[in-house]
């Protein structure tokens, strides 16, 4: 969201026929959004192919066929893995390439958000936001999406979801690096942070599952809020503000 969104004149009743068009997403946000989306798609698919090589999760320093797993997972089906057939070597190549891309894109987004104050202005939950949490939960439950002025800002649940997914991606990178014996030698504190390599591997899977959950909810919200307008705003940046509802 940009400053012109905040300073635009409130929609008058007459403007309802022609919805107000605002510039909602900056170029950096749009670019990194799609790079991240493609990367997460490739990372989840290749990650599940990698997981198929040893579909069990453990807690602690070690874990193998002779240890008690936390969970034995089913084999992930061909339609979801990348590539569709069993090929650990190729899946790893996909995974590490898109891990680098996601990390690079994520760092660009974070640096830009800091410098442009996008993070502070658009993502920071305000006191008013916190007070509006129950109201926002109710609105989401009733599938009522903000109109008019309210639609020009992220609502409080949206802010928490976006901040949460940023934290999850950071957690993915940190737990993923802990799986590397080379990185473990250079930064052994990562092992202590996550309680061992196998705990880090389990957390890597849990964080990934939460990111998939975010993506599902995100897509449902896009559909409910008007998919054409929402998708357009993430491509061109232009967003048609849904007109104010009539009272009652």
């Amino acid at each position, binding site marked *: 969201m940009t400053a012109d969104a905040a300073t635009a004149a409130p929609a008058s009743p007459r403007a309802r026929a022609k919805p107000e068009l605002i510039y909602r997403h900056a170029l950096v946000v749009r670019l990194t959004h799609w790079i991240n989306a493609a990367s997460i798609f490739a990372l989840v698919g290749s990650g599940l192919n990698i997981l198929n090589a040893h579909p069990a999760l453990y807690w602690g320093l070690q874990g193998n066929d002779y240890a008690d797993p936390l969970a034995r997972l089913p084999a992930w089906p061909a339609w979801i893995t990348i590539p569709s057939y069993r090929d650990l070597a*190729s899946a790893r190549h996909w995974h590490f390439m898109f891990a680098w891309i996601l990390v690079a894109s994520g760092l660009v987004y974070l640096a830009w958000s800091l410098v442009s104050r996008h993070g502070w202005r658009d993502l920071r939950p305000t006191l008013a936001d916190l007070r509006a949490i129950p109201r926002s939960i109710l609105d989401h439950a009733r599938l009522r999406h903000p109109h008019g002025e309210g639609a020009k800002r992220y609502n409080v649940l949206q802010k928490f979801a976006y901040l949460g997914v940023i934290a999850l991606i950071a957690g993915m990178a940190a737990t993923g690096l802990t799986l590397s014996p*080379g990185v473990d*030698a250079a930064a052994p504190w990562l092992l202590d942070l996550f309680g061992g390599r196998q705990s880090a591997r389990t957390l890597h899977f849990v964080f990934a599952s939460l990111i998939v959950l975010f993506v599902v909810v995100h897509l449902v919200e896009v559909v409910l809020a008007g998919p054409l307008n929402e998708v357009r705003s993430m491509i061109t940046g232009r967003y048609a503000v849904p007109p104010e509802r009539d009272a009652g």
Partner: protein
Amino acid sequence: MIRVSRRAALGAGIAGSGLALAGCAKIISADKLTQSSAFERVLAYAQVWTRESQRFLLSGGALAREYPASDISAHFRANGTVHPAGEAYAQALAEGFAHWTLQIGGLVARPLALTLAELRALPARTQVTRHDCVEGWSAIGGWTGAPLGLLLRAAGVLPSAKYAVFYCADVLGGEPAKGGAQSPGQYYESLALVDAFHPQTIIAYAMNGRPLEVPHGAPLRLRVERQLGYKHAKYLLQIQLVDSLAGIHGGAGGYWEDRGYDWYAGI
């Protein structure tokens, strides 16, 4: 309200067909891409970034974490070959490996041939470390052996040498990949000299205080603690110092490397 639900239904329809299309496109294109050599070359850049960034991170010669003996796994899983086939190995095993020799040759000033007894008489290093398989599992074991750097200094590595290549006594079958089965082949591995001279890189002859057992590479295996399990070549016969990996088996520097796995296995 009706307007919202109609729009939502339309949107759900569009999104649903979009996802179904994306799913089909994913299966077709991701597999096609995986099998295209051009795309493989693009993905290979990530290996270079990973290797170079880890070389930078590890430039101080950081050691892999060593664990207390109490963390040693009760059962240490063995992967790859668990018992080499063939008459020669069977006979060596029957003799208790009394005549097993490790040859060190190639680009060295003084080629060496060391018996098991001679290796055991050298200064030894014992380390309890975590073994990470490329498949995802880990096990902790205690390893005792001669530091490879000590052997290489004794042999006098020539300045032209860039890699140490490890030849093994076992032939391993492949695994399913890229829609087909891979070919069997002689196991071998290779390391850059910076990893060969690392203090935790040892030629191990004992595991958890006992002579190496057959599934774990008896009588000799490589330990290279900052890399994945497949680098830890078992049933060692020979170490050759070379200036290039081209021309050795598939040319990628190892059995699994010739079958698509990364040569630098730090992740």
